[in-house]
């Protein structure tokens, strides 16, 4: 158990370095080798539970949304403390959640659907590294649909680049 936690922590650190600190290095490298493209990504998702994020059987008000930078799926250090109560809630057992990823309106809708999903998965990996069970966390991306703020300025964009946490009742 401790060994497993340590190794998942290690992966989390690598992930954090990779998604945040190493982005410049990755950019410089992107044209050259295809070998560096290979990456064993996160934990497979569980089968769907039948719950639907915007339906009545999901409580979307229990936890604060996690916000993201433009075009980024890195969980910012300032947002990380929001994950503590979620991880703790899931470690208690018997509960499962849906993480819904969203983007601002800039960029194409299809690109934003993928980016929203990547954001939800980034939060999911963090929670798993904090001891939450992979089988208890679903993801979905709405991309630029269902904005939290319908405005077109940067303050609206910042509110829309988010992952919302829905607790399945």
């Amino acid at each position, binding site marked *: 158990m401790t060994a497993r936690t340590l190794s998942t922590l290690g992966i989390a650190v690598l*992930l954090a370095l*990779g*998604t945040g600190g190493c*982005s*410049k290095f*990755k*950019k410089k*490298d*992107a*044209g050259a080798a*295809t*070998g560096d*493209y*290979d*990456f*064993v*990504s*996160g*934990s*497979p*998702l*569980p*089968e*769907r539970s039948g*719950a*639907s*994020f*915007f*339906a009545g059987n999901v409580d979307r008000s229990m936890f604060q949304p996690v916000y993201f930078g433009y*075009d980024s*799926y890195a969980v910012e250090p300032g947002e990380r403390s929001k994950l503590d109560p979620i991880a703790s809630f899931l470690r208690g057992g018997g509960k499962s959640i849906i993480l819904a990823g969203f983007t601002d309106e*800039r*960029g*194409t*809708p*299809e*690109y934003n*659907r*993928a*980016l*929203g*999903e*990547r954001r939800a*998965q980034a939060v*999911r*990996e963090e929670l798993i590294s904090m001891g939450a069970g992979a089988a208890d966390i*679903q*993801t*979905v*991306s*709405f*991309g630029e*649909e*269902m904005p939290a703020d319908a405005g077109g300025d940067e303050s609206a964009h910042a509110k829309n680049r988010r992952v919302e946490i829905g607790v399945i009742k």
Partner: protein
Amino acid sequence: MTLSRFSAPGALALAAFAIACAPFRASAQEAPVITIRKGDQIALAVGTLGGAEGNAVTAILQNDLSLAGWFAMVDAARAGYTVGGTAQGGQIQGTVTDRNGGVVLSRTYPGGRRGAHQFADDIVETVAGKKGIASSRVAFVGTRSGRKEIYIADYDGSGISQLTNDGSISVGPNLSADGSRLSYTGYKSGYADIYVIDTGSGSRNRAVKFPGTNTGGAFSPDGGRMAATVSRDGNPELYVVGTDGGGARRLTRSRGAESGGSWSPDGSEIVFSSDDGGAPQLYRISSGGGAPRRIATGLGYASDPNWSPDGTKIAFTTRGGGGFQVAVHDLQTGQTRTLPTGGSAEDPVWGANSRHLIYAQNGAVYLLDSVTGRNLKVIEGVGRISEPTWTR
């Protein structure tokens, strides 16, 4: 630096024009006597067709042949080819004669818009030796009902009809080349699934419904498979999957998000975008799997690629000019240029002729001639329109 080089319009537009017209020049030389060209276009006259529906059909033909780009519309006296015929009783009898009065095309078509578009495409094929776009169907997302639903229309914006009525979120349509099937991303289940509609029978299948998000079902050229973004492994990756959702095969393993898969015309490769290296960039990969290769577009942002049916060019969305722009990367020369769209534009898709693109701008569909730079709003009035796609 690269950006300013690519945006110099004159020289590059000329170069592109020369490249695009090279095959046409070659074919025109085979019949130099009867071909009168105005610039690099074939001089064509469209006389008013006889019969009760003659005026209506003539108007459609003139619009189609003008938009086609291959022709200079002139008087009969100066024409290399003249279009004529009759339209009545739900039937079009169409003819094309050359300068010497020789009949190069004579055929009967159904009446109305469908027949007129077919006639126009036959004229393009017979006279210019190119595939026409007039019979193409365009699918897109519209918000008229208050929800995002999928609509379909003729390429010139006529005959708009609503295809989905899910009342949830229906987005990301892709048409098969022949238009017999349409895929889209729907949220009826609460998750993002890829639905496939048989456009003939209207039957629908929730085809790709893995855990997580499933989106971007792009049909292979033969219509038998789809490229798609699937996140079941814990990351959005590029997959190839059967049109019924079976036989799913993962192609990429990356840290980033893959999206926007589009097939090469022979089905051997898929181009897609990945933000594995920061901002999205284009990669190509064998559709059977293997190592992806980055396509050096020279631009810092490249998403939603679309491979031309002739295999030589990839159109995509780039960031610039205070918004987003349509760019084309030529696989033969390695050159990239951004196209003049007069405002923020995204999601370009090649037509059957590998010359015209449709794209989304300000909630409407625009048709862009990549050779002349001429662009025109063709579909609007269904609320806010996005994500156009068309048949080939």
